[in-house]
């Protein structure tokens, strides 16, 4: 095993490994390649019998400007950021103190509250759709940012994740902070939050991915185009273009997918660790 000479069987295995994984990777990436490729092409080339990866006539400007002008695509993307940032801010503000109380404070009711959190983890968010729709209808909040954001302001998953992380923070650290003069709120924000940065980032990544991509709930509560989140915007776009104008459509799809894909490529480790952390713990 330690010999430096490469055995033929090892070359064979490497070829096999790269062959299979390469083909798999190609299939996984094919939709992205197709999407970007079509978004760069003029209609004639899209419908041409031969498929080429790179356009003969570079038509990106036309497609992308059409995508951004025919529908308020920039607005959709902006909405995506407004919604995800607002949601995560609320989630963090509510989850962090609760997770701290669950992990580190002694109070009667702690077990019950934690049991409720676990129960909440079992409930897919679609279950709440009908009652929440009725609630927002009664409150006159349908078709508003509030309607999109409010149901996600609480993340039982975030509470659970942060609680698990806080359990690993030594009790002595909290005791030291109390002696050093911090109150319980100070401990949450000055001690627990900085200590839990990896978990917070994982939480943020998942919250961002989830809420950027969420389609079910915005589809139900949003009617106005100017409130549409990115996935909903794509649907408005597809419906308006009646599924024939593929160049601008793919340009729109590319623009809507880009923020997440770029974020993923830049912070791959955080994404994968985050998803893994949520799963394994």
């Amino acid at each position, binding site marked *: 095993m330690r010999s430096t000479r490469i055995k033929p069987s090892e070359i064979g*295995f*490497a070829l096999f*490994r790269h062959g*299979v*994984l390469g083909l798999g*990777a190609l299939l*996984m*990436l*094919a*939709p*992205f390649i*197709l*999407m970007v490729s079509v978004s760069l092409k003029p209609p004639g080339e*899209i419908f041409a019998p031969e498929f080429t990866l790179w356009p003969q006539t570079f038509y990106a400007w036309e497609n992308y400007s059409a995508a951004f002008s025919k529908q308020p695509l920039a607005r959709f993307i902006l909405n995506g950021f407004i919604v995800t940032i607002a949601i995560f801010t609320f989630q963090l*503000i*509510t*989850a962090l*103190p*609760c997770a701290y*109380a669950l992990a580190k*404070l*002694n*109070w009667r*009711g702690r077990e019950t*509250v934690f049991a*409720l*959190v676990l129960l*909440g983890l*079992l409930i*897919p968010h679609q*279950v*709440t*759709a*009908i*009652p*929440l729709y009725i*609630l927002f*209808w009664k409150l006159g909040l349908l078709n508003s940012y509030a309607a999109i954001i409010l149901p996600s302001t*609480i993340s039982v998953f975030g509470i659970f994740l942060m609680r698990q992380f806080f359990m690993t923070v030594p009790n002595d650290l909290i005791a030291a902070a109390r002696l050093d003069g911090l109150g*319980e*709120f100070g401990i949450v924000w000055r001690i627990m939050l900085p200590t839990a940065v990896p978990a917070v980032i994982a939480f943020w990544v998942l919250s961002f*991915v989830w809420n950027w*991509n969420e*389609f*079910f709930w915005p*589809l139900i509560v949003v009617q106005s185009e100017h409130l549409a989140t*990115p*996935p909903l915007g*794509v649907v408005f776009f597809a419906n308006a273009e009646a*599924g024939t104008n*593929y160049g601008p*459509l*793919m340009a729109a*799809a590319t623009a*809507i997918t880009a923020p997440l894909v770029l*974020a993923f490529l830049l912070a*791959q480790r955080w994404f994968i660790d985050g998803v*893994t952390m949520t*799963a*394994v713990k």
Partner: protein
Amino acid sequence: MVDAVVNLGVSAPPRRRRAGERAEILAAWVLAGPALALMWIMLLGPAVAVMVLSFTDWTFGMPSFAWIGFGNYLEMAEDPVFWKTLRNTLVYVAFVVPLAVFIGLGAALLIEAGTSLRGFYRAAFFLPVTSTLLAMALVFQFAFHPTLGAINRTLAVLGIPTTDWLKNADTALFALGVIGVWQAVGLSMVLFLAGLKAVPKDLYEAAAVDGADSAWERFRRVTWPMLGPASVFVVAITAIRAFQVFDTVAVLTDGGPNKATSVILYQMYQEGFSFLRSAYAAALTVVFLGFVLVLTLLQVSLQERRTHYG
């Protein structure tokens, strides 16, 4: 100042609660309060409400309603569309889960088996998990296009018969399933990779010393048993996610053709928000919740068993 008198046994004196303890309890409720309130309003309360609603005949916007017991459920049982929907959902899950799990496992094993290009393969397989499914569904729609689509062009070159996959009642569900697999593989791969990382390296050395040194033996004797708990989890989470399939149905097939791709969440959406039959949709939601809970409980009990004996 005596808040509570708790008898701690024979010798213990009555207990008085210290100011410090009271402060801690108060702080705990203040800290947990907002989350707890929101949890009730946005999650637990609605979950209870949906169950209550499912026993009424309320339609959205109506001023009054009546209790009809299991009426909605009886209606459901007699509705062929419901059974078709349920069957579609289960077929979809049965199609997506094994493919996603085994492809994910294979990819994870192959990626871990060598050192070169690890990061690239991992990223390539994982990218679909984070991408906006709805936008990608439109790309798939284009790829599935009967004449212009990349899929049919490729199949034609290979001499394989083609069809309009999304419009053909026999194939539409599986075409959606392909998208489902495409999106789920990365998650199962990443979870298996994490499971593989957790296998202690000295186990392989011990196995090699004991004579199990071929790749297959190492997989059978060490890797697979150690992946046991992880694999139960992967199956469960993939199944739960497949059970929630909605986006691709809503945007690509509208449940058609002829209800061939109508799945439970889509049915619930239509009944609840297109036909405004809130109570019936609530009953569908309860059925949906029931399936998800059963899957989760199955996972928990299996995982515990595999962990003990694994």
